[in-house]
């Protein structure tokens, strides 16, 4: 068990490195830079800023520095010199937990500060929407399967189809409109409501959770239908067990397995927040921060949040693999 966890955590390292590599590459392909403004900025100022943030160095490998130091300080220092590049320095700092300064703040705020400040909001939002997705989706799916092809099943189908097919920016805007026109309670302008739990989280959380809820509903339904047909359910019935016991003891646990599978990515997806929903509802979470960072070419913020998201997804998947063992003894022992 411990060995399994250690192996999985170690396997995350190359994954995260690859993510960093690809993100950095893509970022550099995009035109523009962090200090572009609408009005012309003096080239000397830009050069100064670039120098301050190390953007004057080559992107990948610093061969000039390598040659310099090779002749002066020997091969060991030369290798360090080779990685005295934007990517090299970023990665060196990142492994030490320093994700660099945000360019937007002109270097007064670090990326990890920004994450610490915005992530709890997204986390709360995500947890509420996950709870919503599970509490509504799971029972709805079970109901649909147990009362297959009845009005309950169709009701569950309609709800999940809406959740699936209507994009969140539509449902979000509709909800926002209803809230502001009918109840006069939106949009929420006071940023302090996002500190700690408050009712304000519910509208965006429900919209955010709709898709996951729909998915869980459909998945649960098909899973329960599948388990219902299994031989061991017939065995359970042949023992004279009542419907309630057959469902609760024999069907539900077996039908949880596929639902758990999607939970890992779903948790990561919900917790890192929907970029769109956070913008629509003006939630100052990490998602809206990320969108902002892309627009302003805030390189370190883009890198930092991408790595952070990747870490969450990877951790989510490890959690899922561990929870399989709790539910399915066949996996526990192997």
């Amino acid at each position, binding site marked *: 068990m411990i060995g399994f966890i250690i192996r999985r955590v170690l396997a995350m390292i190359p994954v995260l490195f690859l993510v960093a590599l690809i993100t950095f590459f893509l970022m550099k392909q995009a035109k523009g830079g962090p200090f572009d403004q609408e009005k012309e900025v003096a080239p000397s100022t830009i050069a100064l800023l670039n120098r301050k943030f190390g953007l004057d160095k080559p992107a990948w490998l610093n061969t000039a520095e390598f040659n310099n130091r090779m002749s002066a300080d020997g091969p060991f220092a030369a290798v360090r010199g080779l990685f005295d590049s934007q990517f090299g320095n970023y990665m060196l700092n990142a492994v030490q937990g320093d994700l660099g300064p945000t360019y937007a703040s002109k270097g007064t705020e670090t990326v990890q500060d920004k994450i610490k400040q915005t992530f709890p909001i997204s986390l709360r939002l995500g947890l509420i929407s996950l709870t919503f997705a599970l509490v509504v989706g799971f029972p709805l799916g079970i109901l649909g399967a147990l009362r297959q092809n009845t009005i309950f099943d169709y009701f569950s189908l309609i709800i999940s189809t809406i959740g699936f097919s209507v994009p969140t920016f539509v449902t979000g805007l509709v909800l926002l409109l209803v809230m502001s026109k009918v109840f006069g309670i939106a949009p929420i302008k006071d940023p302090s409501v996002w500190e700690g739990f408050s009712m304000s989280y519910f509208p965006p959380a429900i919209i955010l959770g709709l898709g996951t809820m729909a998915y869980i509903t459909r998945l649960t339904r098909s899973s329960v239908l599948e388990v219902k047909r299994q*031989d061991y359910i017939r*065995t359970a019935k*042949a023992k004279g067990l*009542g419907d309630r016991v057959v469902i609760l003891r024999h069907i539900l646990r077996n039908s949880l397995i596929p639902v758990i599978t999607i939970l890992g990515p779903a948790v990561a997806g919900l917790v890192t927040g929907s970029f769109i929903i956070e913008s629509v509802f003006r939630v100052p979470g990490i998602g809206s921060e990320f969108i902002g960072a892309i627009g302003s070419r805030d390189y370190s913020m883009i890198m930092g949040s991408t790595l952070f998201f990747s870490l969450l997804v990877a951790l989510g998947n490890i959690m899922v693999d561990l929870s399989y063992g709790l539910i399915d003894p066949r996996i526990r022992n192997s």
Partner: protein
Amino acid sequence: MAEAPLLEVKNLQVQFKTADGVVNAVNNVSFSVNRGETLGIVGESGSGKSVTSLSIMRLIPSPPGKIAGGQILFDGDNLVDFSESEMRKIRGNRISMIFQDPMTSLNPVLRIGKQMTESLQLHMGMTAKQARNRAIDLLSMVGIPAPDKRLDDFPHQFSGGMRQRVMIAMGLACNPELLIADEPTTALDVTIQAQILELLNRLKNETGTAIIFITHDLGVVAGMTDRVIVMYAGRVVEQASTNELFRNPRMPYTIGLLDSIPRLDGIQTRLTPIPGLPPDLLEKTNRCPFAPRCDFVQEQCWIETPSLRQVAPDHTAACLFDIDRDQRQVMAEKKIAEEQAVLDAALEDVLAHEQAS
């Protein structure tokens, strides 16, 4: 007068509604099982033997299936009229069932102990502790070593044969009066099959439980059962004591089944398979359902469905004619001779044609 039978199935009709129409899976099936008796039900896939047994437990998936007629008298009560809750008191308690595939018939996420004790607690009102002790006794009865430890294992930690032993132990948990074993050895390899059959034979004698043994393997029937019914296309086509059936089969289908299993008594004969496929139960016909595959087929077979009739003491068969096994060889040879004659004639024709040109 003899004691009333434990189970009496009278004119049972089971139908399944499908997109193509109503399938008559079981047609007018009647038979009875006495206390302590072992009855074999033999037939190929789709002959209605499993549907019959599931009907007795009232476990036919409904919809699409339904018991369309007939009676299932168990100890005098008609199970067809029982409510679902009355049925639950019977299932697993007075009638229990063992299924074909032990690999899939146990819940993979529950410990064996839990699966064994749940019916004990339900039907016998045992506490968890009492049920556990009874489960330990049952497991050692079916020959599972270290039963107190094995109770805490999951199904995947048992081999196929061991799982079937667990299934049998579960089936016998509440001392049922009737045990229905639906092809309990089909999914097992041959040496394990023999062990399981031996176990069932021993337990049958120890507990005195009546058994309905469903199989497509006549070899298994020979060693296990007192009486046999043969099913074909949802009907009973022959019924006799096991000895009588093997010595004196009177329905062409039974004869075909017997001729398609190898004999171990030294007499070397060619194995003759039954040609063709079982009939489509959707069609409604007046002919004998076996006619298209029958070696003995006569004109009358195509216009009349035979019903069961007495052919010997305590022996019924659904065939219009008095036939026996020895005739088959004769009939088969006659058939071959006829085919040969047709071929010869054709060949002569060709030769004559060639000579003429």
